[in-house]
C-alpha cells in the first residue's frame, strides 16, 4: 500500500490490468479453440463420414452472419427484428430443436420478438410474436412417407466410400476439395472441409464446412467471397447438444388473442423453410413436391391469384442457365414492380411467411421494390442497359428489356452473358 501512496499513478495499473485480463481471456479462448487435437482425416474420408452421419435428435443455438455487402436499400431497415426476410443481412440468432424430420422447431430470435416454425407430426405451425399471428397447416399424410430422405434409389453407389469418391469425382472438374485441419465450433472439436472453385471467375473463393469431430454432422458453414478475409456468409452453431429435446418443445397452441390462419398444405412455407434447418434438403424436396402436385387446385383465392401472377410473369419465357459449375448464370424474365404491386399476397413474399397479404401490402411492396430498383446503379454496354446489384457473393443484372441475370460472378461476366444470343429469351 505504501508504494501506492508514494506513487499514486501506479493505481492506474488496476483498470489497465482489468482490461488486459479481459483481452487476454478473450484471445486465450481463441487460442485454445485452435487446438482440438483430432486425428487427421482425408477429404474423402470426411465425405464418407458426412454421408453416414446419423443424428436422430439435437438442439442448439445457431448464429447466422451475413455480410454480403448489400447496398443500403430502403428495404434494408429491419435490423434486430425477428422477421425471416431480414436474414439476408446482419447477424441473427436462431434456436433449433430437432427430433427426427417429423418433429422440429426453429425459433428466430429478434430483440423483443420471435418467429417460430414448429412441426409436430402432421401439424405445421408458424408463429410471429411481433404480429401476434400464427398459421396452421395440416400436412397431408402422404408427405410423411415422402419425408424419408431418398437415400439409396437404385443405381446409387453401394457403400459410402464409393459414394464419396463419386462425389469427389463429380466435383473435381469444378471444385477442389481439401481438408484444412481442425477447428472448434460451439465448444466442440471439428474437422474443416474446404471446397474451392477452380474457376477463378467465381466470386466465391471457398466454402468451408466444419464437421463435428465425433458425430460428423456439419456444425458450421462459411462462404468466403473473393478477396475478403472474413466470411461473407456464415451459419454455425454456437451451442449444440445431441440429446433428445423435450417433447413439450414441439407442442404449440396459439395463445388466446392471436390471429390464426389455417393454410392449405403446399402453399408457401417450403420456400421460406428450405435450408433453414439441419435437414433442410428433405423438406425442400418435399415442399416442392407439394407445390407441383397440389398447388393448382385447392388454394384459397388469394393464394391462387398470387400463384397465377407469378406463373404469368415467369411463363413468358423459360429461364435458361448459361455456363456451368460455379460460374453458371441464370437468365430469366424479371417481374416488374407493377406486377408485384398488382399481385395480391405479395406482402407475404417479402416480409416473412404466413400472413394474408392484402392489396395495400402488395402495393407497398411494389413501391418498395420500385424504390430499391431506382436506387441501384445504372449500367450499360453493347448488351443494352439496365441496373446492377452487386454483392460480395453474387451479382444481379436487370436488363431494361425485362431480363434478369443472376450468378456468383462478376458484373463483367454478366454483361458478357447478356450479349450472348442464347440469353435473349426470344421464344
Amino acid at each position, binding site marked *: 500500500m505504501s508504494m501506492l501512496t508514494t506513487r499514486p499513478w501506479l493505481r492506474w495499473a488496476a483498470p489497465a490490468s482489468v482490461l488486459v485480463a*479481459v483481452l487476454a481471456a478473450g484471445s486465450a479462448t481463441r487460442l485454445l479453440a485452435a487446438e482440438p487435437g483430432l486425428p487427421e482425416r482425408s477429404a474423402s474420408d470426411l465425405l464418407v463420414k458426412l454421408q453416414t452421419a446419423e443424428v436422430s435428435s439435437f438442439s442448439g443455438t445457431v448464429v447466422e452472419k451475413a455480410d454480403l455487402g448489400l447496398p443500403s436499400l430502403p428495404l434494408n431497415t429491419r435490423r434486430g427484428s425477428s422477421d425471416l426476410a431480414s436474414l439476408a443481412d446482419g447477424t441473427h440468432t436462431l434456436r433449433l430443436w430437432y427430433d427426427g424430420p417429423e418433429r422440429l422447431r426453429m425459433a428466430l430470435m429478434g430483440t423483443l420478438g420471435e418467429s417460430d416454425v414448429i412441426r409436430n407430426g402432421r401439424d405445421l405451425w408458424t408463429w410471429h410474436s411481433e404480429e401476434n399471428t400464427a398459421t396452421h397447416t395440416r400436412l397431408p399424410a402422404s408427405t410423411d412417407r415422402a419425408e424419408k430422405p431418398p437415400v439409396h434409389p437404385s443405381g446409387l453407389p453401394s457403400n459410402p466410400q464409393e459414394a464419396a469418391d463419386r462425389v469427389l469425382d463429380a466435383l473435381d472438374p469444378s471444385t477442389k476439395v481439401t481438408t484444412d485441419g481442425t477447428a472448434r465450433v460451439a465448444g466442440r472439436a471439428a474437422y474443416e472441409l474446404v471446397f474451392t472453385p477452380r474457376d477463378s471467375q467465381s466470386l466465391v473463393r471457398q466454402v468451408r464446412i466444419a464437421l463435428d469431430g465425433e458425430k460428423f454432422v456439419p456444425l458450421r458453414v462459411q462462404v468466403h467471397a473473393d478477396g475478403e478475409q472474413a466470411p461473407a456468409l456464415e451459419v454455425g452453431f454456437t451451442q449444440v447438444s445431441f440429446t433428445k429435446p423435450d417433447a413439450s418443445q414441439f407442442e404449440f397452441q396459439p395463445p388466446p388473442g392471436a390471429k390464426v390462419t389455417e393454410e392449405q398444405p403446399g402453399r408457401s412455407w417450403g420456400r421460406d423453410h428450405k435450408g433453414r434447418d439441419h435437414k433442410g434438403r428433405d423438406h425442400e424436396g418435399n415442399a416442392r413436391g407439394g407445390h407441383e402436385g397440389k398447388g393448382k387446385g385447392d388454394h384459397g383465392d388469394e393464394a391462387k391469384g398470387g400463384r397465377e401472377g407469378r406463373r404469368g410473369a415467369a411463363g413468358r419465357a423459360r429461364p435458361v442457365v448459361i455456363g456451368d459449375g460455379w460460374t453458371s448464370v441464370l437468365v430469366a424474365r424479371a417481374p416488374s414492380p407493377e406486377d408485384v404491386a398488382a399481385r395480391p399476397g405479395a406482402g407475404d413474399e417479402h416480409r416473412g411467411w404466413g400472413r394474408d397479404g392484402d392489396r395495400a401490402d402488395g402495393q407497398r411492396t411494389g413501391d418498395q421494390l420500385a424504390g430499391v430498383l431506382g436506387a441501384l446503379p445504372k449500367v450499360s454496354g453493347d448488351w443494352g442497359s439496365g441496373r446492377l446489384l452487386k454483392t460480395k457473393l453474387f451479382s444481379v443484372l436487370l436488363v431494361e428489356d425485362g431480363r434478369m441475370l443472376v450468378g456468383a460472378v462478376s458484373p463483367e461476366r454478366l454483361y458478357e452473358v447478356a450479349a450472348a444470343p442464347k440469353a435473349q429469351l426470344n421464344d
Partner: protein
Amino acid sequence: MSAADATAGVVTGAASAPWRRLSTRFLRSELGLVFGRRRNQVALAILAAVPVIIAVAVWWSAPPSGRGPNLIGAVSGNGVYVALAALGAELGLFLPLAVAAVASDAIAGEANQGTLRYLLTVPVGRARLLAVKYAGVLAYALAATLLVAAVGVAVGVAFFGGGEMILLSGSQIGFLPALGRVALICGYITACLAAVGALGLFVSTLTEQPVGAAIAVVVFTISNQILGTIPQLEPIHPYLMTHWWYGFGDLLRAPIATSSVGPGLLSAGIYTAVFLAAAWARLGSRDITS
C-alpha cells in the same frame, strides 16, 4: 426510511462518525443520504409514473389490432406486460439518467459542496468510501427498477387483470412464474445499470461538478445507443455498453435463452470492473482540495 433517519444519515455521513471495522453504519448513512435526497425521490416518482401512464393510455385507446410495438401491444392481454413495457420504455433514457445522476453525485457532489475532505477525515480508506458510495448507487438502481416493475404489475393487474402470460415463443405461463420472469428481468436490468453506475462513479471522481458528470454519463450512454443504430458500425456493436440491454427479451422465451443475456451480463461485468478500478485509481491518486 424516515426523514429523521435520513437527516441523521446526512450528518453522520458527511461530517463525523467514529469508525469501526465492518460496521454497516457508513453504508446505512449513505443509503439514507441517497434515498433521503428530495431530487432522488422525485426521480423515483417520475420513473414510477411511466407504467401508470402506459396502462392508462392503453386502457383508454381502442384495443390494439395486434400490430402494436411488441411489448405495448401485449399490454392489454396481460397486466404484467405493463411492467415490461415500462421497463423497456425507460431503459433507453430515464433509468440510465436516474442512475447517472446518483452516481455522479457520489464523489463530485461531495466535492462540490466542500464535504469531501471532511468525509475523508473519517478514519476509513478511500477504497471503502468508494465501495460504500457504489453500494448506494447499486441500491438506488435496483430500487428504481423494482419500483417501476412493482408499480407496473400493480397497475397492470388492476387495469387488465393477471392470469396467464404469453411469452415471445407463443407459449403461456401462470401468474407466479410470470412474476418470476419479471424479477429476473429486473435483475438483468440492474446489472446493466450497474455498469452505468460504475461509469458515473468514475466520472464523478474526475470533476467537482456533479451535473457535468451526469451529463457526461448520459452523453456516453446515448452516443452508445446512436452508434448501435448505425449499420456500418456493426463490427463494434457487441462491445458497446448499451448493445445488450434489450436482450432481456431472452428471459421471455420458453425455455429461457442465454444468447443475449449471457454476453449482456459479461459485458456489464467488464464495464463495471474497468470503471470501478479506474474510479479507485483516480480517487486514490487525487489531491482532494475541496
